[in-house]
């Protein structure tokens, strides 16, 4: 996914010393993934996500004298983008309380067999069913498996983006996979049940 890490680090160093070419190269390597990730966090406005990506890169340029080479550029950029998005969203003057992450996970319902059946009946295809099932996972687990299976990040990098330690990042992915596996077994069982 990420190109040659040494190359990237070289680009970054050049960028820090003021090279516009290296700046554009870093942009080219990461903007697609940043966009995808940003859109998964706030899908309501593409314009907003693009603004945030712009701000992240602008800030890198402006603060380049004070920056060092991050140990992982992709997760550094993801963290920066996420912070930017959250920062701007908080300024939207939405008087909502931020539920702590632990509580948030608790609030999530455990899907019952009936829920799975409903999902199954309403889904036209296997892809749709799986998309819906993944959509039932707690948001942080969803985020973790996107980073894991699409962005191909390791648990250390996922931990950096989600601001948890490596073990917790692993646990998030593990729990998500266990749930999906259980749901798929239920769906499979219901499917056979419906056949006979």
């Amino acid at each position, binding site marked *: 996914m990420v190109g040659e890490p040494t190359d990237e680090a070289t680009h970054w160093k050049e960028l820090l010393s003021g090279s*516009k*070419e290296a*700046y*554009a190269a870093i*942009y*080219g390597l990461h*903007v*697609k993934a940043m*966009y*995808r990730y940003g*859109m*998964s966090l706030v899908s*309501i*406005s*593409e*314009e*907003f996500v*693009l*603004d945030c*990506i*712009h*701000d992240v*890169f*602008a*800030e890198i*340029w*402006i603060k380049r004298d004070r920056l060092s080479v991050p140990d992982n550029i992709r997760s550094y950029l993801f963290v920066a983008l996420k912070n930017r998005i959250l920062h*701007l969203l908080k300024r*939207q003057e939405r008087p909502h309380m931020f539920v702590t992450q632990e509580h948030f996970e608790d609030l999530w319902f455990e899907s019952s067999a009936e829920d799975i059946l409903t999902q199954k009946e309403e889904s036209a295809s*296997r*892809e749709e*069913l*799986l*998309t819906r*099932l*993944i959509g039932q996972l707690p948001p942080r687990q969803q985020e973790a*498996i*996107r980073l*894991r*299976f*699409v962005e*191909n990040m*390791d*648990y250390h990098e996922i931990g950096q983006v989600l601001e948890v330690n490596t073990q917790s990042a*692993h646990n998030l*992915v*593990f729990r998500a*996979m*266990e749930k*999906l*596996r259980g749901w*798929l077994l239920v769906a499979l069982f219901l499917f056979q049940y419906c056949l006979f």
Partner: protein
Amino acid sequence: MVDFVTDDRFLRHHLAPSTDSEAFWEEYLRTYPHKHTAWQQAGELLHAVLLGLTSYSRTYLSEEEEVRLLDRIMRTAEAYDAGIQDTRLREEDAPVKPLRQTGWYRIAAAAVVALAVVATGYLVWRPKTSRKAHYAETISALESTSRVTRHTNKSGQPELYYLPDSSSVMLAPQSEVSFTAAYNQENRSVYLSGKATLDVVPNAGKPFFVYANEIVTKVLGTRFEVVAFDDGSDVTVKVLNGKVTVYQNNVRNNGAEAVPKQSAILLLPNQLVVFDRKAELFDKRLVENPVSLPEVKSLPKFEYEDGYAVRFFEDIKKTYGVNVVYNPELLANCQFSASFSDESLPEKLDVVCKTIGASYEIIDAQVVITTTGCKP
């Protein structure tokens, strides 16, 4: 089994298998044969998850948007370097902007009165075909079943004529417009011979149809022009503003009241369709000299200083409603400086293409840019 799915080696093997990884897992399963089922199920689970994540992994940033955003970032960086630091600060205070692309056509759809220009009957030399003039045929067929109102402008001046629903027709000399008693009852169909300017009162329940020779033009809230030669030559429809649909009139003579279904062509502003009467084919083109869309609120200034060619082409799209086809990767490094005022679209394209060493063609009503790219 879930242990497998969360394992780095397992994932790497499935996402990008290599001879090494093949060997590793073969060896593993030989050593632990009882894990074979779990290993296989883990593979299925992984692929199920990847399938469920396709809507995420398919969230693509378009190439155009990628180039545009880079351009914007570069301008911010340049502005910062030049000491103008408040650009970003202003940016920071900007609220979330609404979703993009409030298309001009939506504004057009809201237009209160649509204006239509229709013209037929230029004298162009053509060998006479055995085909009789369509207008006369159609009118006599209509007269056999219904009362037909015909109005001919016999003066030497254009004449304003009102239809029963208050839509007006500016008829050119020697031109005729007709309609049946069903007009504004069951339909709003007019038949035309000659040249006319129509001012159509919008009525979504009763679409407005203009029958000119073999073609039918459906008015969708718009301003357009029809040229239909009575002597067997091509028929053209040109859109100035809004949208029209053009059909081939396959129900010839037997009362053109039936809504035509075949070969519908949607025309957007600055597009033109030519109907080849011999081949019975439509050919969609760009008008010779496209004009800027009247609905576009903030027209681009067309002033570029080390501007990106891609931005210019996007400005063209926005201003003229014309699609420009290009490869943004090839154009990524193409910059130029120019300032336009009243130049026509072809003139603008000529200047920019020459500057960046590209060329353009107009194919199927689109501007297609050919280039080998620019050196950074």
